[in-house]
């Protein structure tokens, strides 16, 4: 169980990393128009 002493701090770091990824996604506008990809096949270009 000693490995947990490493894993838990690691998971904290990981969470912060994932949050960073989410931040990037939100501010790049990834969630702005969720239907866009689904509708793309219907567009001409």
């Amino acid at each position, binding site marked *: *169980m000693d490995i*947990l*002493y490493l894993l*838990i*701090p690691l*998971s*904290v770091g990981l*969470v912060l990393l*994932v*949050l960073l990824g*989410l*931040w990037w996604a*939100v*501010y790049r*506008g990834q*969630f*702005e128009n969720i239907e*866009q990809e689904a*509708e793309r*096949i*219907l567009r001409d270009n």
Partner: protein
Amino acid sequence: MVIEGMHCAACALTIEDALRSVPGVVQADVSAASQRARVVWNAAAAPPSLWFAAVRRAGYRALPAADAQARQQRVQEKRRALWRWLVAGFCMMQVMMYAWPAYIAHPGDLSAEMEGLLRWASWVICLPVVLFACGPFFASALSDIRHRRISMDLPVALGMAITFIVSSLGTFDPDGLFGREVYFDSLTMFVFFLLTGRWLELRLRDRTAGALEALMNRLPDSVERRGDDGRFVRVGVRRIALGDVLRVLPGEVFPADGPLLAGSTRVDEALLTGESAPRWRTVGGEVCAGSINLESAVEMRVERVGADTRFAEIVALMESASLQKPRLAQLADRVARPFLVFVLLAALAALVWWWPKDPQHALMVAVAVLIVTCPCALSLATPVAMLSAAGALAREGVLVRNLQALESLATIDTVVFDKTGTLTHDGMALRRTEVAAEMSAAEALELAAELARHSLHPLSRALVAAAISGTSQAALDARSWEITDLREAPGSGLTARVRKLHGAGPARTVLLGSAAHAGLPAQDGDGAQVCMAWADQAGPERHAIARFEFEETLRSELPAALRALERAGIAVQVLSGDRAASVARVAQRAQIAAWRGDCTPADKLASLQALQSRGHRVAMVGDGLNDGPVLAGAHASFAVGSAVPLARMRSDFVVLGGQLALIAQSILLARKTLRVVRQNLWWAALYNALCVPLAIAGFMPAWLAGLGMAASSLLVVLNAARLARKLPTLGTLADDADTRRGPRTHAPAHA
């Protein structure tokens, strides 16, 4: 400037090429990421209109950057809210994971070190939640304290702060006053649920605003303005000022309000007044922003521009409606305030009561009281439901001017149409053709339609439509008449010289228009008429060719809408100011038994009051314009056909597309909304009545309190969100209305 419609980096290149191909553009940079373009141009060689047009030709839309600022701001706000929500949600999950071992571990299973580590990790993950995601709560609580107010955020923020401080102390100083318990899980969870509620609310409101923006974007980007040298130069609409003289070409939209200085034209004010027939405007006549110039180039002086135009007033009106507080919500807010004071006092009392026994327990009881009470559920109950209903309606083309009216709309049992025009289409249909011996009815119609093509008068359009429906479009395109010297006498008719293309024959003068214009004796009839006649060069003598009689066409969805109203237990009446004969005809064809024609506004009001005194709840459907007192007197009122003369308009709802089925649907939705509001209020009241005493008595741990409060708000919001999904269906009619309306069912059909 801002470019709309860009979706990839390649688009940026296309736009750059398009811009650089315009002579006079010195430099053009387009950024795909920010959807902005920077253009440096030589003002003399390339007026902005030229490269705005170039962008449009390339298939994109360019806006001056200032226009986009409001939108940009809304996007920013939405992003930040989403981001807060994601931070809270993600951290909540992680904290739950750290909390889980402590839940299931038997005493002694977990070493003290391990427990400490888990708490430390929870604390770190909690930091972004408290410092960032809770920001709005703390900010609003602080401003409350500064202004000596009390609002929902105050106890919530207080609870958050206390929970976090106690838990932090428990983490770093387990032997201190407040013991070793931590509540990071409760904290993150209820922050997450609270933010979920807020985010949903923001989205619902945004959707309503989106519908408004579509309305707003009708104004043109640029317009021709007379410079000092008397020449007209194209400038951006933003730059026009009071007193400017503008030239508006046919097909353009007027950018400002003001009188015409030169020229005369027909304008389509359907957007502003719901008046479907184009209006004739001559020198001195007022035109308003947002209306379309149909006929010829005119010059106007700018008297009101920007936010002062009637057009802007409409938009402001719609916006203010979405911020209104309905009566039930005001009531809830009024109750909420003393309730909040009570909660704070109760928390304090609980704290004092429990303190001597166990300070930590006392503090957590107080926190539980602060958190468990959910005045938000109470005060969210009404606005959330009404806003989702308004959003659902706005998506379908019904603007809610007055949220309060949703409440009264739910109780409606009689619908009164105060204009026959709302029951009929804008256009007319050819009912009867009467011809002289010379031509057959079909030939006469063909000649009339070829003439009528040159006019925008509603009856001309009806003639063309009748001819197209009679023959094929191709047959109509193969012209058999040569038309020269066409002149239009506005409002009365057309005069032209025509000659048969095939076969010899002299050119003759033909007159098409009102009986007076054609020089024929007027004939009695209950519909509109168009006469066609030959004119001899020399004298005033006229030879009749044909006489066309028109009648109004009922809106195609009318029978279905009426049936739906009937099924909902709503009686329908017509009270019209039109002539009794024509009202009778329309009412008979629409199968409405109760009708009255020749009503003055006073008559209408009297009939309305008579109905109301008999205990009926009445909704008026009109054009929202002429019958202010009547509309105001009704319990709820609709204006059909984008009838929007602005601040003067008294109707509570505006049906933009003129779809009558939407009226029935709105009523059904309003009923459902009221049901949801009642459920929400009951739930919130019951929840608080039950949980607050429990929490004060100390039976409610903080995590359960957090769960309860979040669940109660969430339930209220989710219950309301049911309304936003879809308009209530109208039985069988709905099936076909749904397939017609839904863009999602539509799209595959095009593919």
